[in-house]
């Protein structure tokens, strides 16, 4: 039929095909970027692991690439990252969740509509500004209460990191709480539960996968955060057992090496790629879990 032929011809027009090709190439760039990240990290790390046995990397308890007697154990760096993230979560999870429950279950429409954008503004503050805040505001403040707190410590870096991720956790959790259908709240209230009981025993359990996803996303931010720990956390890699100690995180180590004079192709140069690969693996696992949880909460309702 004629109409069919016209349709076919239009589909095959050269310009349209060209546009589609260009658009496809633009979108495929994302694959290229991911592939380049993996290639660069893995190829440099492979060179690193030819010199340093993988077993030493995992089991050695010292990270001293700059010393005569060089040790390359990732554990001190991971302990620094773990400790600062733990402090950040201890601050951000309770505060973020309280905020989210208040905004979703108690606050009026107008309060919510004015507070949420302000929280989003916080997410736009450059991290180097947070670093300044941690070093020159939070640390002196904490030193008044904790005598003997060193000038560089993971506690103040972690607390400020927690303040930084509150908006993420509060905003994403609020979305999850609000996605719980009103009928469930109505049912609970009709049975005589108060709003608080409804919030904690009905709404929160129903939104638990979305809230969990929000927390893990916040955690992944904290793990990958660089500037706050570089400025305020200290540079000495050591096994950290107490938050008031100073210590280097994986990200802080990478930045610190980059700030010095790096010679391309040396073991020190390759070590920052190995550390970066370890960081990426952790962050991707967290993101994968968070993504799965968030998708589950979308599917349920």
């Amino acid at each position: 039929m004629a109409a069919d032929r016209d349709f076919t011809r239009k589909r095959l027009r050269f310009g349209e095909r060209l546009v589609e090709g260009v658009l496809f190439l633009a979108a495929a760039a994302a694959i290229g970027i991911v592939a380049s990240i993996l290639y660069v990290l893995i190829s440099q790390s492979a060179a690193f692991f030819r010199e340093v046995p993988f077993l030493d990397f995992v089991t050695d308890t010292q990270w001293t690439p700059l010393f005569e007697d060089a040790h390359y154990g990732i554990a001190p760096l991971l302990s620094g990252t773990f400790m600062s993230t733990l402090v950040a979560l201890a601050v951000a999870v309770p505060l973020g969740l309280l905020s989210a429950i208040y905004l979703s279950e108690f606050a009026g429409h107008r309060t919510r509509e004015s507070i949420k954008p302000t929280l989003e503004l916080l997410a736009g503050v450059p991290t180097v500004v947070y670093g300044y805040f941690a070093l020159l505001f939070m640390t002196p403040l904490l030193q008044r209460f904790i005598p003997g707190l060193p000038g560089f410590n993971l506690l103040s870096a972690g607390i400020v990191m927690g303040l930084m991720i509150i908006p993420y956790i509060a905003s994403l959790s609020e979305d999850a709480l609000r996605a719980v259908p009103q009928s469930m709240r109505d049912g609970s209230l009709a049975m005589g539960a108060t709003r608080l009981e409804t919030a904690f025993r009905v709404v929160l359990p129903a939104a638990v996968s979305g809230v969990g996803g929000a927390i893990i996303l916040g955690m992944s931010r904290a793990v990958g955060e660089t500037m706050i720990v570089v400025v305020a956390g200290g540079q000495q890699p050591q096994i950290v057992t107490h938050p008031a100690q100073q210590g280097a995180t994986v990200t802080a180590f990478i930045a610190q090496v980059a700030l010095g004079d790096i010679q391309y192709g040396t073991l020190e140069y390759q070590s920052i790629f190995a550390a970066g690969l370890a960081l990426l693996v952790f962050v991707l696992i967290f993101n994968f879990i968070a993504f799965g949880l968030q998708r589950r909460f979308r599917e349920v309702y």
Partner: protein
Amino acid sequence: MSVADVPVRQDLTARPPGLAARHFKSHSFVIWGILATLIGLGTLVALVSELWVDGGHRINWDFFWSFPSSNPEDAGILSAWVGSLLVILTTAFFAIPLGVLSGLYLEEYAPKNPITSVIEIAVNNLAGVPSIIFGLLALGLFVQGLALGQSILVAGLTLALLILPVIIVATREAVRSVPQEIRQAALSVGATKWQATQHHVLPYAMPGVVTGIIIGISRAIGETAPLILIGGLTFVAFLPITQPNQPLSYTIGEVDQLGSPIDPDAMERITVSNPATLSLPDGNVVELAAGQSMEVPSGTYVDTMSSWSDAIASWMPWSWSGQSFTVMPIQMFNWTSRPEAEFREAAAAAGLVLLAITLLLNGAAIWLRYRLRRSIKW
């Protein structure tokens, strides 16, 4: 609350025991909720006031128009904000077209097939990659692999990759919210798919796309970690671009690190547009008037003022993109890590400027989004 917890009530008109206490708890939770929210908001207030107390007095005209200096009183952010501006221009040049086109492809064109899902997985994962990893990518690929040097071009490209997922996701959401009827109407009167997308879908999606672009650019302005990795210099007392009638000096031909010509016999004819002093390799000094030309040997040192054409040439992207640079957040980081308290005042002042720019941009984006949500009802 399990069924067993609920006491069996004989008199249904009586208030259940403990109800008042439960309601009191429920109401008093509001206080905790407000308190928690205020801590979040209070952080912003504390940040701004801390920076203002430390560095507010440093904000003046000279601060914006001075180079960094070893004397903290004179230190300014001229090279930092010019560097930031040039880096962000480069970032926008790469990230905006790439991000918007990718978003359009994924929403409007992409067939449901394995390649599309791989692209989607890649975009989602890129959004969660820590910024310092992009720095490692730039170091390994751009600086070392492609030998692009520690330049404005590399910095701009790196930040472009970093904000690409932000722009793609925003474009997708904006395009998805355009109702199907708009597309059908355009297609039914004979528009091709691209015509419908370009003339009808994209204009409606524009406010959402612009919101995403602003948020991405604002993030790029504040990013520090990836630029530390590619060696954003922290002490830069020159500008990659120049003005007319500024001191300008250069050497003719290729020279080694000591300034001696690699090929001493090579001659080159030069014409100077401003009066110039030429120091020849044999030690002679020649004065040239504006417009004069002369045959000079390789290694001749020319000391002159920049002309209008030199200035204009320096403003061209291919000229400044290869230059080394510093940016606002790196300048602030550098001053913060100095032990002298006076440098911290400069750091606080730089932080205030940085905070003002990013908060303004984010505020604009949030305002745009909320206005959009109110005004458009499909």
